[in-house]
């Protein structure tokens, strides 16, 4: 049987959904943009004082019904597209966020360079356990048009899907032009969404003018949006799990209504960020006890409302240490076992830094968790009675001397059952042999492996036409290098 970790009953999920609808109808959403408010009023919403809009239940349900339940996020290589809702394992999408790269060898934070980002994406391109990449970075060298730069750096180093986050509405258009060129035209881009763009609601229950402008731009261009809801428990969201999830659900549903009214039938992903507010330090945490609990609930919530949720795994640790491994493992495991369809993995320092060596730790955790998700097969072949009989029949000096190492059954099943590694990033030799090999730490071994990958792995380059298009877009929109 396959493991299926559940933390909410059907009645509890219904209660959360009903509460979200209640919040939209009775508490309403603060919407700064007048044009968006007008759109909502014209479609059955009521307006209160202070730009508050109240959403009728029937409208929310109608819009949710017209939102696709299955969403594809495309890469340059169609074979690497992610179709959320149809996959065997949860998709794993590492995230480059903000300005710091963690140098694990010198245990130092360095200002991110273009090379850091491209190397990170290159390692992601190499690893089988990584399905896509998410880039939002404000590299100091760029000054503006961050989304365009992020997308361009991403597609240059991987053929897997590259998702991006918009920080400025004006960068939507040049990025859209680039995605269109790669797809081969506007119609092709609609069929194969190469561009998935994240934008955030503001908690509690608010959409800023800039966010509304971006929603309108995405709907107009037909660009696939991913709506992020971030309400740290005890800060801008209730401290209780049920209330926090209900509030974030209401925030997502309000964004979905706006988008469906602008472009009916467009896919709208939900990025459900689980965060808690640490009352000792005044910091928002993404990998505290409460976050592990919410991580576990993501799969059930997305199945209940029927839209794919991307949910983050974000260790708070500031370095690659035991805390980092603990936080990564304790968020990733319940989230994957809970059935969440896509997981966005940040590096360290509560999303503020990324690191290449960490990808190899993640790689093994994903392999292990996928194996766990496959469960235990019990059938005549896996029970191995004939093999046990055969091995036990080998007797020497009155003792059983057979073993399973030379059995074809072992050859057939070893990799399928055990999913072993073929490298030694994870050290499994005897201590003596490990010492003989230099007695290196995990970080040192991972660093060597990363260096090897960077030296040998060559992502498929962009075509000459796309390179020329990038030059043209840069010139047209006055985007620097």
């Amino acid at each position, binding site marked *: 049987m396959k493991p299926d970790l559940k933390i909410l009953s059907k009645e509890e999920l219904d209660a959360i959904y009903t509460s979200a609808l209640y919040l939209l109808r009775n508490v309403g959403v603060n919407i700064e943009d007048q044009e968006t408010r007008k759109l909502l009023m014209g479609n059955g919403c009521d307006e209160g004082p202070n730009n508050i809009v109240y959403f009728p239940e029937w409208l929310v349900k109608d819009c949710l019904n017209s939102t696709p339940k299955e969403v594809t996020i495309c890469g340059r290589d169609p074979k690497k597209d992610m179709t959320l809702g149809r996959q065997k394992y949860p998709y794993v999408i590492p995230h480059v966020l903000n300005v710091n790269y963690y140098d694990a060898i010198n245990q130092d934070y360095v200002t991110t360079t273009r090379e850091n980002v491209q190397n990170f994406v290159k390692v992601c391109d190499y690893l089988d356990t990584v399905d896509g990449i998410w880039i939002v970075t404000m590299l100091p060298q760029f000054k503006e048009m961050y989304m365009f730069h992020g997308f361009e750096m991403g597609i240059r180093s991987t053929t897997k899907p590259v998702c991006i986050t918009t920080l400025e509405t004006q960068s939507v258009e040049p990025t859209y032009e680039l995605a269109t060129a790669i797809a081969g035209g506007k119609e092709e881009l609609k069929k194969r969404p190469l561009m998935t763009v994240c934008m955030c609601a503001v908690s509690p229950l608010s959409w800023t003018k800039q966010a509304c402008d971006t929603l309108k731009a995405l709907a107009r261009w037909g660009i696939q949006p991913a709506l992020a809801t971030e309400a740290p428990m005890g800060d801008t969201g209730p401290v209780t799990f049920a209330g926090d999830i209900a509030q974030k659900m209401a925030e997502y549903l309000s964004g979905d209504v706006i988008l469906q009214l602008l472009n009916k039938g467009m896919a709208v992903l939900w990025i459900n960020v689980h965060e808690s507010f640490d009352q000792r330090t005044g910091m928002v945490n993404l990998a505290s006890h409460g976050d592990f609990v919410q991580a576990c609930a993501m799969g059930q919530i997305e199945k209940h409302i029927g839209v794919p949720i991307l949910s983050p795994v974000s260790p708070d640790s500031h370095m690659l240490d035991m805390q980092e491994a603990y936080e990564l493992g304790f968020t990733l495991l319940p989230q994957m076992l809970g059935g969440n369809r896509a997981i966005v993995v940040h590096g360290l320092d509560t999303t503020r830094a990324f690191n290449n060596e960490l990808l190899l730790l993640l790689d093994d955790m994903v392999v292990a968790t996928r194996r766990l998700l496959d469960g235990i097969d019990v059938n005549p072949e896996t029970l191995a009675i004939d093999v046990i009989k055969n091995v036990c029949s080998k007797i*020497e*000096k009155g*003792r059983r*001397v057979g*073993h399973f*190492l030379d059995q074809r059954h*072992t*050859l057939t099943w070893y990799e399928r059952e055990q999913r072993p590694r073929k490298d030694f990033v994870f050290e499994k030799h005897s201590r*003596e042999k490990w010492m003989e090999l230099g007695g290196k730490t995990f970080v040192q071994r991972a660093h060597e492996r990363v260096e090897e990958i960077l030296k040998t792995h060559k992502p498929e380059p962009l075509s000459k036409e796309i390179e020329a298009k990038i030059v043209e877009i840069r010139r047209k929109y006055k985007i620097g290098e």
Partner: protein
Amino acid sequence: MRVGKTVAREQMSSSFEAIKDAVAKYDEDLVKKLVREAIDQGVDPLKILNEALTPAIREIGDRFGRSEIFLTELLIAANACMAGVEIAKKRLLEEKRNTSKPKGIIVLGTVQGDVHNIGKDILKTLLETSGYQVFDLGIDVPADEFVKKAVLEKADFVGSSALLTTTRPEQKVIEKKLRDAGIRNRVHTIIGGGATDQDWAREIGADYYAADAVEGVQVIRKAMEKHV
């Protein structure tokens, strides 16, 4: 009658590649079939041994050394290889030709009081497929038996395995008895097993220590080449 010379070089080369490929795919039945076919087509069985089967298993051993394959794959490939070796050797005997002289004669066993045999069995398989003649004394072998067999077969190497700290002193006894028998100067000794290490080899006066079977073959190969 030897008809090997009549087989075109290209045909022979393609046949050898197919045998190597079958070993690499762990396909014992295919190895047997291809070796039989090659012999039927007039290929010299000695060439099959030296130019197909031996390089095939060496490549498999190297791949294991590079962590590209697992121990089970190594062993099953070795077994597939060995099945081909048996057919080629049988044909040589039928032709009343000597099989090629073994690269060395090795006496192997697990020491008295110890019944662990997996590492020793792997070493045996790898040595045989690499062209060595191996006399496997099995498990729980008294020191005297190692010495007796080494004298009888004019062994180049005596290899003993001990997995327990309580049984490893037997390896010291073997060293002493080989000296007492007056053959220690013409036989090399190699020790292995979980309870042993380089320091222990030095302490008891063994010539070599190997951490695992693959290293054991490498150590023996190097020592024999030096010796020759």
